């Protein structure tokens, strides 16, 4: 108690000082948004653009006058991909920073570690991580933005079925993300009439996947390969696939490789590879009537102007999360946690960079299969093929 009361005294002092110097700015408490993201570490390719996106839009909205006449205050911690740190930061956000909502958790591991805390503390939490387990079964206070890996697999299978490719080999890393994707790839295969004829693994640090691919090449009847993974190993796999002259076997990947780095890293070897991507990556190619076109183009422009870097789909998750949260706060007329939670759950036809969200008490993600766009790598860039 001693610690708390001292904090309160400090807070009152600080507030008092602020009142003296800036009476009108303190007229209303800011809306506090808390976040923990993997800004550094192995998952930094997720957390870095997410953090940049949150900062960019919180600044922007504050300059435009804030929400409900209140300014936004953003507190971000770097959990560096570590689930233990994520729980520490989640507690700090709730107990010390007293935030109104948490948007964060770049990886599934961090998200799942934090779930029990937000359930206990009853605070709305919008996760930016991918796996189904986050929202299945539905957890009262937990929502998630990105498409799940199961949807990516199903989208790819849908395309394979269209092309009559039913005998599929899987190749993926031994890391958690890859394994979760692999599990889904096995689980939904029967639903789409797909037969898994081979399943090969590589370590995340491997530098040559030719042995695994050679095994797939020599598997009788294989018509397509489905790759699970992200980062450098996927580029190497793509390059080995074309070097081994396997381009007669169609290669699909999950959306983890949806970045220009994947294409560049493969050094021309990724030509012809297909994958489902968020609309954001092919915004310019979307037909003018597509509802996601404008949202995506605006986000790309704002991000480029602020950071002089190309966008990634991951930053888009943060864009969607922040705006869904703010819309809900607007509708709730304040930051009452239970009301905000109810309003997030009622999100309908929210057009984000990841798709069109329709949440419900049964669905805390709200995206459908058609929010993914199928693309093929052609001339070192993505070509929309629908």
């Amino acid at each position, binding site marked *: 108690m001693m610690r708390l009361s001292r904090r309160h005294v400090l807070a009152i002092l600080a507030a008092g000082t602020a009142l003296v110097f800036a009476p009108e700015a303190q007229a209303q408490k800011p809306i506090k948004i808390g976040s923990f993201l993997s800004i550094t570490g192995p998952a930094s390719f997720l957390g870095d653009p997410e953090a940049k996106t949150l900062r960019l839009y919180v600044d922007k909205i504050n300059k435009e006058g804030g929400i409900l006449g209140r300014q936004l205050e953003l507190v971000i911690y770097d959990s560096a991909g570590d689930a233990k740190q994520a729980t520490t930061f989640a507690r700090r956000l709730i107990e010390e920073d007293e935030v109104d909502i948490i948007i964060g958790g770049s990886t599934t591991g961090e998200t799942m570690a934090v779930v029990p805390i937000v359930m206990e503390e009853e605070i709305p939490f919008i996760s930016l991580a991918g796996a189904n387990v986050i929202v299945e079964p539905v957890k009262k206070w937990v929502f998630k933005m990105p498409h799940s890996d199961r949807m990516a697999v199903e989208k790819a299978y849908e395309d394979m079925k269209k092309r009559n490719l039913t005998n599929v080999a899987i190749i993926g890393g031994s890391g958690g993300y890859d394994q979760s994707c692999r599990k889904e790839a096995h689980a939904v295969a029967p639903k789409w009439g797909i037969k898994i004829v081979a399943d090969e693994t590589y370590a995340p640090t491997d530098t040559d996947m030719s042995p*695994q691919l050679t095994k797939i090449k020599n598997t009788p009847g294989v018509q397509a390969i489905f790759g699970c993974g992200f980062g450098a190993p996927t580029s190497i796999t793509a390059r080995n696939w074309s070097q081994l002259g396997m381009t007669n076997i169609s290669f699909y990947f999950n959306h983890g490789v949806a970045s220009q780095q994947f294409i560049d890293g493969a050094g021309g070897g990724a030509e012809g590879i297909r994958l489902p991507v968020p609309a954001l990556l092919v915004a310019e190619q979307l037909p003018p009537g597509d509802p996601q076109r404008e949202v995506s183009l605006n986000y790309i422009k704002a991000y480029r102007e602020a950071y002089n870097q190309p966008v990634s789909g991951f930053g888009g998750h943060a864009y969607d999360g922040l705006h869904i949260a703010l819309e809900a706060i607007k509708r709730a007329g304040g930051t009452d946690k239970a009301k905000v939670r109810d309003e997030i759950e009622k999100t309908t036809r929210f057009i984000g960079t990841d798709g069109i969200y329709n949440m419900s008490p049964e669905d805390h993600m709200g995206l459908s299969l058609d929010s993914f766009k199928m693309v093929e790598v052609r001339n070192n860039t993505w070509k929309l093929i629908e």
Partner: protein
Amino acid sequence: MAEFLQFLLSGITVGAIYALVGLGFSIIYNASHVINFAQGEFVMLGGMGTVFLMAAGLPLIVAMPLAICVVVAVGLILEKLAVEPARDATVVTLIIITIGASIFIRGAVEVTLGKDFHRLPGFSGDEPILIGGAALQRQSLWIIGALIVVVAGLKWFFDHTRLGKAVLATSHNRIAAQLVGIEVRTILLVSFGLSAGLGALAGILTAPITLTKYDIGIMLGLKGFAAAILGGLGSGFGAVAGGIVLGVIEAMAAGYVSSAYKDAVAFVIILGVLFFMPSGLFGAKGAERV
């Protein structure tokens, strides 16, 4: 048969990479019995440096030596600022210092050059060479060629130059070396500069295959170290043999056993070898250091 050949070629490619990185450990080890855990970071700096110099518009032929010079400078600075002040400390302390240095270098690159992965184009194109139905990456030939040159160069350096002999003498008995007039401090400085340069060369030659990233040094350093241990620390030929053996075992295990357990198979074999031959396949026997 084509399948076996493909596994073999893949194994040799990967093994040559491990070997080239593993060689870098031998020089500093020979000079001081310190295992330099920042060796992987020298490798990473070589690759990343070349990527960024080329992005700045320099051709490969200029970017490569320039990057090597930069990394040599980093190696010298590391020795001067971190290792030399602690030269009277135990070997374990020095090893810990190199671990600290590796974390520092990695962090500095992460902050300044970013977290993305990059690729250098293959030196003589990216089209593979087909041998009996199996594909060999052209870049592998560059790596194997460099391996031969470096091993021969190191052998000549340690056996036939005054400086090389002085390095070996220092490693055997520092005080005796000092008594016969060897400047012990310069020896360590030279060895850090040399192995930094060698690491950088390895990083540049392997970047078209492994890709490069701020943290690639952890993996390459570890596998290179495993190769050096397997072959016998301090022996150039041993590092090469260790690397190739490790690479081929991994490829064969992935091809014929299970790709999920290939690393486990490789490590079991390394442990087995070290159990019966503690100083590696070609290492000097431990008894000589009394």
